[in-house]
Each structure stands twice: as structure tokens, then as C-alpha cells.
């Protein structure tokens, strides 16, 4: 009898244990509910944004649910869903459809750009060097200038050693990451590792452990590890603007803990949540912040990092072909300030 009972229990467990996820239908309402739920269960900044910008995700549901009906076109649905996502004020939150990408770029569009590619060309000239996407040259006053426009492409250790070797004669270097929207966090760390001489705590990371807004793992420390290759020992200035986002935001955070490094320019754009992806029944893809990162004091850097010295681009300088931020950095490194 015991054996029969055990077998019955076992068979019942097997038969009624299909591992399934709730599937929404492919109507406008189904897609709306699916999107709201994806964010509700996975987005990592609800608590922080409730505190800072008063975000209430349940209220957001009610606010936008009334705009949904099953007769609306794809374009209309997309517009409402993007409006809902914009409530999160997060550059890492996007909705991808075949016809458009939903985004909230207010983190830089609402601010001065503080960067002009045309003006920058006058500094780079035509004889600059390129090492794995890094553009660099020695300016007239013996200040090295490095421009990293993205961390998306891999930068090799050999490239970094070569660049720093070539600039070793300089009195200081400018690392310009303006308009760098991010990329691989490991690449940005690899560059930052060239500016520290000892293992350095630069921040923390955690991840969600469940569907609740407050279900997080404990904070795990993140360190800079000094590179075995060439490391920069003189002064350095990092130039920033509002378009420094995501991995570049992390890079700026790491660099500010390095000795001899000064952050100059505007506040960064932020974006401290490592983004994950999911999707809707309609096949549209959604990206969202999933794993929050913090600075070494365990403070949020989702809305950006303040520079050590605020400097804005002067439009009259730009008209004359001068980049106010580069000129400021040259003076700082040349000991003229």
C-alpha cells in the first residue's frame, strides 16, 4: 500500500507539473499587459525612482491602460507603450519594433551638448593615430589627447600599451569620452586599469533575485585591478558631457577613484543598470535596466556623475574653433590654472 501511495504521489506530481509561464494573447491589451508585467517583474530601479521622481508603476498601469483598445493600429499601440516606458526616465529602456525604436533620450537631449565634432577635428588634424578605435595624438603644448568614442569595440591590452607608450613623453593626457554612449563594461574597465597602481574599490553591483521590486541580492564589490602593461603615472583629465552613458558612466566612476585623474566637463548621462532584454507577444523586443551598479560609497549613479570641475562649451570659443573643455584641460595639465 505504501508503495502504491508513493507511486501515486509521484505520478501526480509529474502529471501536474508543467513548467509554464503565463502567455498573453497577441492583442493590443495582451501586449500592453505583457509589457507592463515584464517591467514590473524585472526592472531594477522602481524603489529608487519612486524616491527620486515619485514613480508608481501601478499608477502608470492605470494611467495608460485606458488608452488601450483592441482596435488600435500597431503604430498607435507602439506610441502608447513608448509613452508608458518614458515614465521610467531611463535611457536603457527601449522598445524595438520593425518600424521604430522607442526611447527616452532626455538624459542628454535636454542639456547642452558640450561637444562639437567639427571643432574637435581641428585638434585631431589629419595626422592622428588610431589604435583599435582609440584616436590619439600629441598636442602642440606636449599634452596627449585620447578620444574614445565608444566602448563597444574591443580594445586590446597591446593597443593600450602602445598608445600610452607613444604618449609617455607628454606632460599629461586628456581622455575625451564625450559623446561616448557606452558599450562593454569590461572594455571600459580595461582602460581604467591603466590609471591605478593598486587594487581599488570603485563600486558595487547586485541583481534581482525575484519578481518583487525590492528583491535584490547583496551588494558585491567591484574593483579596478592595476594592469600588468604600461600604466599612466602622470596627470590625466577625463572630459565628460551628458552623452557619457552606460559603460562610459561606469568608466567615469572608475576614473574618479584613480590618483592624478580629474573629471572635467558636464555631469554624465548616467545609466547604471546593466540592461537585459525581453519581448512581447507581438514580437517586439524590450530592453530594460536589470542589474543596478553603485559607486564605492554605495550611492546610485543612475542619473549621472558630477564632474570635479564643471566646464561648459563656450559658443564664442566654438565659433573661433576652440573647444573650451579641451583648452581648460590643457591649462590644468600644463599647470596654468
Amino acid at each position, binding site marked *: 500500500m505504501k508503495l502504491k501511495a508513493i507511486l501515486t504521489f509521484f505520478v501526480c506530481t509529474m502529471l501536474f507539473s*508543467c513548467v509554464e509561464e503565463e502567455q498573453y494573447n497577441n492583442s493590443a491589451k495582451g501586449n500592453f499587459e505583457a509589457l507592463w508585467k515584464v517591467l514590473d517583474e524585472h526592472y531594477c530601479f522602481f524603489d529608487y525612482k519612486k524616491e527620486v521622481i515619485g514613480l508608481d508603476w501601478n499608477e502608470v498601469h492605470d494611467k495608460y491602460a485606458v488608452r488601450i483598445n483592441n482596435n488600435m493600429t500597431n503604430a498607435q499601440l507602439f506610441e502608447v507603450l513608448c509613452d508608458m516606458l518614458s515614465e521610467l526616465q531611463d535611457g536603457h529602456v527601449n522598445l524595438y519594433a520593425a518600424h521604430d525604436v522607442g526611447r527616452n533620450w532626455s538624459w542628454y537631449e535636454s542639456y547642452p551638448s558640450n561637444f562639437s565634432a567639427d571643432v574637435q577635428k581641428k585638434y585631431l588634424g589629419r595626422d592622428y593615430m588610431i589604435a583599435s578605435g582609440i584616436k590619439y595624438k600629441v598636442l602642440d603644448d606636449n599634452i596627449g589627447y585620447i578620444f574614445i568614442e565608444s566602448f563597444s569595440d574591443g580594445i586590446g591590452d597591446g593597443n593600450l600599451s602602445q598608445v600610452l607608450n607613444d604618449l609617455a613623453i607628454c606632460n599629461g593626457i586628456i581622455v575625451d569620452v564625450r559623446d561616448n554612449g557606452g558599450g562593454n563594461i569590461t572594455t571600459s574597465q580595461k582602460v581604467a586599469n591603466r590609471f591605478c597602481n593598486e587594487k581599488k574599490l570603485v563600486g558595487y553591483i547586485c541583481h534581482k533575485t525575484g519578481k518583487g521590486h525590492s528583491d535584490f541580492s547583496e551588494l*558585491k564589490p567591484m574593483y579596478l585591478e592595476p594592469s600588468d602593461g604600461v600604466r599612466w603615472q602622470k596627470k590625466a583629465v577625463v572630459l565628460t558631457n551628458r552623452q557619457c552613458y552606460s559603460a562610459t558612466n561606469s568608466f567615469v566612476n572608475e576614473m574618479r577613484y584613480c590618483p592624478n585623474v580629474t573629471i572635467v566637463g558636464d555631469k554624465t548621462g548616467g545609466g547604471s543598470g546593466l540592461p537585459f532584454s525581453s519581448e512581447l507577444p507581438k514580437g517586439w523586443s524590450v530592453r530594460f535596466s536589470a542589474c543596478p551598479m553603485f559607486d564605492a560609497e554605495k550611492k546610485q549613479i543612475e542619473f549621472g556623475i558630477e564632474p570635479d570641475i564643471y566646464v561648459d562649451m563656450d559658443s564664442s570659443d566654438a565659433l573661433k574653433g576652440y573647444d573650451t573643455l579641451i583648452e581648460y584641460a590643457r591649462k590644468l595639465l600644463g599647470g596654468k590654472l
Partner: protein
Amino acid sequence: MLQSKNNIINNRKNFRGGEHVNVCLLLMLFWLMPFAGMAQDSVALKPNKIVESVFSAGIGSSNVLDTYLSPLNYKGTELRLQYDRFRLTKMMGGKVGVQYQYSLFASNLKNGAKTAEEWAGLAYASLGYFYNANSQNVFGIKNLSVMFGPQAEFGVGGVYNDRNSNNPANAKAYLDLKASAIAKYKLSIKNYPLCLSNQISVPLVGLAFSPEYQQSYYEIFGLGYYGGIVNPTTFVSRPSLRNQFSADFPLKNSLIRVSYLFEADQLKVNNLKFHSYSNIFMVGYVKHLFRLRGKYKN
């Protein structure tokens, strides 16, 4: 010993001759001998000297859900290779058989809207020991035999989604201790021998790799935070099942196995859900080998 050698030689000659009757005889022999205790005085015909190996290939449908990657079910086609090897041992008076099973499969899947693709693949190896308690008349049915026993299985694989950002793939690795049973029923239709079999196996306890709910692989492998990724499992958190129904029959000079395999591989750990449902039709080539070591040692 001389008689034994002659037996082997005669058997080999018969196989080379490729007569239909010999293939049939072998098919019958393999399933008769283990349980009837025949030919105990012959090395060549001793049950533990016969090895059955089957190489099968199959195609079918697959349905995969991995909530680390997507909340949607992905469906598509699966290709599968499988190698089975079975022989009886001397354990418990020759009533215990050992089975080795190796399988490799891959599937290409799409979401319902056909806007994204996933690739899933897995390789596993299992070792099982099967005990035959009865002769061939289980439940009063003539020629039906049932074997059951434990099985250990180790598998590695993963699922890749072609458009995700920092969660593009999820690795799979597990070690399962399973309960498995094999039922075999042999019959002949107008003197044409046929062996039907069904093997079912379910994991009872084990270990499974899984990232935590929203843990990035950067955190695991980039920063080295491995806590929580190896999870103990039971049949509650891993309610999985593999069932393979097969028919062995002779075709010209060969033994052929056709089978239908249903597999429900499921896992619920770290608030993540995974399932992979496969329905596969397979065709295999069966070989019966005589296992000889040294100078035809007993």
C-alpha cells in the same frame, strides 16, 4: 574451450552470410538469453558477452521556454543523435544489465511572431543499471519482461537568443540521479520477429546550474561571484521525463530500430522557469556484438 571457439566461428560465419534467418535468430536470442539462462556452457552465447549497440538519428519538433531569455515559448525543429549500448553483467546471477546512453541534439526555434530566433543544444551521457526481477511473463503476459533501476546522467548545453543584450544565452548543466524502467515485449507476426520496448526515466534528485533570477553572466564569470548558481534539485523542482518507445525488426541483413521519443525537460529554480518539450521520430541501426577479452575468458 574448443567448443566455445567453434561456436564463435560458426556464429561469425552466419553473420557474414547475412541470411535473414540468422538476423532474426540473433534478435530473438538477445532478448531470450538474459532471462532464460540458455547456453551457460558456451562463452560465445553467454548473456554477459553480448552487447547491443544502437546508433539512432532523429528529427522532430521542439518547444522551449527559458524565462531568463524570454517569457515566450519558442517552437521549431530538433535534430537528435543517440547512441545506446546495453549488456548484461554477472551481477546478481546475471539479472542486472548496464546501459550507456549518449545523446546530442540541437534545435532551431522561433517565437510566435517569427521576429526572433533561438538555438538550443544539449549533450548528455548516462549510465544505468537495470534489474530484471521476473522472467518473461510479467503481469501474466507471455514474452513481456520489465527491468528497472537507477540511472546517473550528466548533461551540458545551452540556449542562445539572437537579439538579447546582456542576457543573450543561458547555459545548462545538470547531474541527475534518475529512476528508469524498460519494458520489452517480443512477438512475431507470420514468423517475422519483432521486439517492442519502452524506456521511461525520470530524475529524482540532482544538481543543476542556473544563474539567479536576474544575475548577469558578467557578474558570474567577469567578477567571479558564483554563489547560488549550483542548485540541488528534486522531482518537484525538476519534473522531467523521457520516454522512448521502440520497435526492433530485421530488414534484409540488418536490424533496424524505429522509435518515438518524448522528452519533457523542465526546471524551476531561482524563480526562473525552463522547459524543453521534444517529440522526435528516430531511426537506428542495431548491432549485436560479442564481447571478448583476452583468450576468450569467461
